[in-house]
């Protein structure tokens, strides 16, 4: 095993091929980032909103609106903190 990572030959790829791949990968990265955010938000909001015993397989209406609020208030909080940091930075 002298060369564990031998990559296939892409030397015949044109600029267009490379550009296609680049934008495909950028798109995938954006998707992955979005999904990571959703995983993080679901984790947080599950803890906040699904507080009772699990009695069925569905999210009920009040839990659903709690989840929605949770996402929106989390983003509001984030924006408030960033804004506040900006103000503090301006003062320092």
């Amino acid at each position, binding site marked *: 095993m002298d060369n564990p990572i031998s*990559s296939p030959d892409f030397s015949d790829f044109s600029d267009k091929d490379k550009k296609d791949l680049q934008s495909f990968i950028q798109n995938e990265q954006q998707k*992955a980032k979005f999904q990571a955010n959703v*995983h993080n*938000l679901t984790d947080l909001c599950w803890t906040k909103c699904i507080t009772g015993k699990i009695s069925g397989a*569905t999210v009920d209406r009040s839990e659903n609106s709690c989840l929605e609020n949770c996402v929106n208030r989390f983003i509001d909080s984030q924006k408030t903190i960033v804004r506040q940091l900006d103000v503090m930075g301006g003062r320092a």
Partner: protein
Amino acid sequence: MDNLGNMLNLGSNSTKEERKQALMSTIAQESNIENARILIEKINEKCFEKCIPKPGGSLSSGETICLTNCMQKYMQAWNAVSKAYINRIRSDPGGN
């Protein structure tokens, strides 16, 4: 880690277009696997916490039912959060 050529399942005589498509589908597949892996990890963590408050000598039938329900419920919650997040991004594109 497998070698990339094997992973892409490419013979030496595959066309350029085949190699391009193979590369893209491998990337998409890896990304889907990673997404599913994180989801399963989270479900396991959250539902263990909810359904197995005091681990006994074996999983009871009640605990097993709870796990099944919890799993489905977590996926629904994931979808609800995803929807809310998309709506927020759409209505508020500049702000995060």
